């Protein structure tokens, strides 16, 4: 039975590709339905092909505003979390200090905590302090939960770095600042970039924590949430598809550049 044998040998591949299909199916649906022309307020059933939404992506009230706000928060949260997280990561790997265990748990716990718990407790704090919910409270919350992920990403990279490289720089007349700028930072850069990318994605896509601490401010995920109750405009799918394509293109071009550089070296 050649077919059965073939099936046996490729069982893992088939199962893996089925999972990949499961992962990508919603993206396919999002893309297809960005060309839909729904009858009612909800874009859940296929009616007829149309490029209306693509021609006018900001045609829905407040959507592009919320998108801009989300981008703005994500950029600032990424900068904040990356700077603070990188500093912590360096301290953890490079120095000995008291209470290391406590510091490690304080960094691990936010990653092991359900979002809804962090969201609710942070809201308690803001209510108690009488803080005005909005842009700033969202930003504070985002930096808080992105921080630990940045620390983890940067720490991994810095740990694998040979400490002798920094000693070599010092031996070659580079002072502490020069050593950091010319050697440490460039070598740690991939880890920092990975951490920053993760922070951006987490912040941009966050809903639960934002929903608790946003007050009347509406980010893009909150806009989508609201529209799930009121009616989903096709433009949501347009934005979703565009984001997917931009992400894939971004990564692909990065890969191609990387490949070309490697080939030049060889």
């Amino acid at each position: 039975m050649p077919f059965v044998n073939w099936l046996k040998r490729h069982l893992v591949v088939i199962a893996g590709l089925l999972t990949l299909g499961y992962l990508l199916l919603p993206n396919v649906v999002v893309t297809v339905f960005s060309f839909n022309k729904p009858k009612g307020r909800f874009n859940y059933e296929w009616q007829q092909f149309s490029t209306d939404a693509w021609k006018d992506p900001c045609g829905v009230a407040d959507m592009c505003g919320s998108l801009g706000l989300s981008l703005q928060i994500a950029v600032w949260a990424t900068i904040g979390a990356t700077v603070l997280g990188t500093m912590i990561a360096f301290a953890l790997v490079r120095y000995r200090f008291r209470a290391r265990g406590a510091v490690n748990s304080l960094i691990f716990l936010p990653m092991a905590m359900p979002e809804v718990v962090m969201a609710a407790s942070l809201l308690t704090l803001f209510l108690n302090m009488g803080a005005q919910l909005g842009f700033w409270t969202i930003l504070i919350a985002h930096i808080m939960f992105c921080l630990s992920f940045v620390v983890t990403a940067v720490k991994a990279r810095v740990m694998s770095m040979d400490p002798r490289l920094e000693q070599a720089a010092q031996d070659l007349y580079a002072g502490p600042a020069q050593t950091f700028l010319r050697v440490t930072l460039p070598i740690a850069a991939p880890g920092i970039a990975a951490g920053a990318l993760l922070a951006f994605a987490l912040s941009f896509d966050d809903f639960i924590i934002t929903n608790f601490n946003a007050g009347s401010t509406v980010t893009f995920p909150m806009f989508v949430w609201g529209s799930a109750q009121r009616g989903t405009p096709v433009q949501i799918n347009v934005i979703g598809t565009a984001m997917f394509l931009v992400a894939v293109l971004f990564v692909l071009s990065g890969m191609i550049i990387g490949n070309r550089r490697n080939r030049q070296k060889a």
Partner: protein
Amino acid sequence: MTTENSGDVRLSGISKTYDNGFTAVQPLDLTVPHGSFFALLGASGCGKTTTLRMIAGLEEPSSGTVHLGDQEVTNLPPYKRPVNTVFQSYALFPHLDIFENVAFGLRRRGIKSVKKQVEEMLDLVQLGEQARKKPHQLSGGQQQRVAVARALINHPKVLLLDEPLGALDLKLRRQMQLELKRIQTEVGITFVHVTHDQEEAMTMADTVAVMNAGRVEQLGSPADLYENPQTTFVANFLGTSNLIEAEVDTRSGEDIVLKAGGGKLVLPRARCSAPAQTGGKVLVGIRPEKISLTHADDAGEIPAGRNRITGRIADSSFIGVSTQYVIDSAVCPEFEVYAQNIERDSRLVPGAEVVLHWSPAHTFGLDAAQDIDAGVDTAEEEAA
């Protein structure tokens, strides 16, 4: 700016004890003369690398001072010391190409036009073609030469080499030994070389300091160390030594006569580092290649005045240029003898009764209070 002794490295009472209480280097005085090729030799953990790093400024001494010529540098950070290091496994900057690696030190000192100097230096180490490659694209030997170039271009007063050849295979290592020696002669800078490989130290250095457990056991030229070891550690770590426990019988003029297992051995007084009182114990040492081997039947042909020991061949192994014998003897259970393969006596096979004999001038005497096997295991471990 270079006066005659400005390249001297002087360590006075320098020591290093870590926070956990481990003492890596015991208080140590050492002077490395300007322009010499100096080797710190010892097994791993003997404190040789720590000593080197204290000269470089990468490790803070717990006590003592470091001078470079007339300048005290004990409290200067590494980037202010006129000293450069070739690191173990090189520590080349992976994000910079070869040119920028070599130019690194010059640029940090604010020198703008580095092109000519870097190119000259790359030519010196025969890497002119590879200037724009990244370190990981070079072979181990090439990386090693980049590391040397990167340090030398700064014209340091002293070049420190931390096991620079450890990562290379045997053949390349031999080649690089000669290469480094050539460069040192060419540039005339003081080299301080840390290694665990006794052959490497002896081939390259003018002066070798043998270190053990944070102390310098003995310091001298390679030939001096080999011929006149002062401690059992040096005797066993550098090459192989046969050590016999003996009792001082009489002291006559230039010689000491010793009793060992019924026989008598003669040892020149000048070659005995132990206080040999009559009736006291001394360790008598002899290198395996200094010994001649004669079949017991021909014992009468041995010239007079030579030290003799009788025994039986326990094992022999033929290794081309020589044959190595292990002799079972009353005074020493595993006596090693290396015989040149000039005329092979076919009777010298395991089981044969033999007489070992050597000139008293090749005998050395050591203090019997020491561990007779010191340095044996470490030498074997490092070789493995």
